């Protein structure tokens, strides 16, 4: 299985995402924002960072970059696409996911190990979790407040498209404590927290067992492989 990770100018977590793909058991393939070539990948990760400096709006310019026309076509064709943080912002700016992301309600950048509840295990990126499983993965963002109009929120809630919800604390003022959502088909998932930073013992969040031992993020990547195998 080949999982592409797109590097935009200003991407920060592309190499971490590639490493996470590898730890998850797939082959990471580096993709470049300026190309029109997906290099025959089976799935795509849009990593975190500050694409094009986030100068216009977070993810706005990246959503119009050359490779995104291929990503949008592939996503609409059913290919698994995961957007992490800035990648989530790119997905909403590309209209692959509904709603928008605005500056955190408290105005500050936030960086913490965040507890989430997995509320939909039928997506390409969450099928390895258990229903309502509670996980901890790092979160770091300045513009992570998820918003949408009431009709969209009602649809997301009603159709089970809220995949991850913040637990214990809402770090950025997101509507309905939403941390991540999917499209109707479940192949496109975006979330603000960073699963790629919780894939290897020694480098993830603290757990009750040991410091930095959290690897809950790895399941995102193994889920995608499971999903691809099921559809192969």
């Amino acid at each position: 299985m080949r999982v592409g990770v797109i590097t935009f100018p200003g991407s920060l977590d592309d190499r971490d995402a590639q490493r996470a793909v590898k730890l998850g058991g797939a082959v990471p393939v580096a993709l470049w924002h300026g190309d029109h070539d997906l290099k025959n990948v089976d799935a795509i990760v849009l990593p975190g960072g500050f694409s094009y400096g986030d100068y216009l709006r977070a993810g706005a310019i990246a959503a119009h970059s050359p490779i995104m026309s291929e990503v949008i076509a592939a996503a609409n064709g059913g290919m698994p696409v995961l957007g992490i943080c800035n990648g989530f912002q790119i997905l909403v700016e590309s209209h692959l996911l509904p709603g928008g992301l605005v500056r955190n309600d408290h105005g500050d950048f936030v960086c913490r190990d965040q507890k989430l509840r997995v509320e939909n295990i039928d997506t390409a990126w969450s099928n390895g979790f258990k229903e309502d499983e509670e996980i901890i993965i790092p979160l770091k963002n300045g513009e992570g407040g998820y918003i949408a109009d009431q009709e969209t929120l009602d649809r997301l809630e009603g159709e089970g498209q809220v995949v991850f919800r913040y637990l214990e604390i809402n770090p950025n003022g997101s509507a309905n404590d939403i941390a991540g959502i999917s499209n109707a088909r479940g192949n496109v998932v975006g979330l603000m927290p960073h699963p790629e930073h919780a894939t290897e013992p020694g480098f993830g969040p603290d757990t009750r067992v040991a410091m930095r031992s959290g690897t809950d993020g790895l399941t995102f990547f193994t889920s995608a492989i499971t999903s691809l195998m099921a559809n192969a």
Partner: protein
Amino acid sequence: MPTIVVEVMPKAEILDPQGKAVAGALVRLDRSEFTSVRIGKRFELTVDGPITADLLAEARAIANDLLANTVIEDVIYVGEARGADGSQTAAEGA
């Protein structure tokens, strides 16, 4: 150079932390006559020739497609550069 201005504001129902911070500063400066502040963006699109209806239509399309995210922002003005009193500044750049 003739310039088309696009102004974008966060939607009214969206919290604007930048505006809120400035409003807080005004209170601290004892300028309590200003009850709220909201901060938006102004884009200046410069063109070589005269500003035509076609160019304005193009600017409007760009404003809604790229400059603003209409989920969270409103495009409130697309037109020739104007003065602070609303007058056209035709001589600008001459």
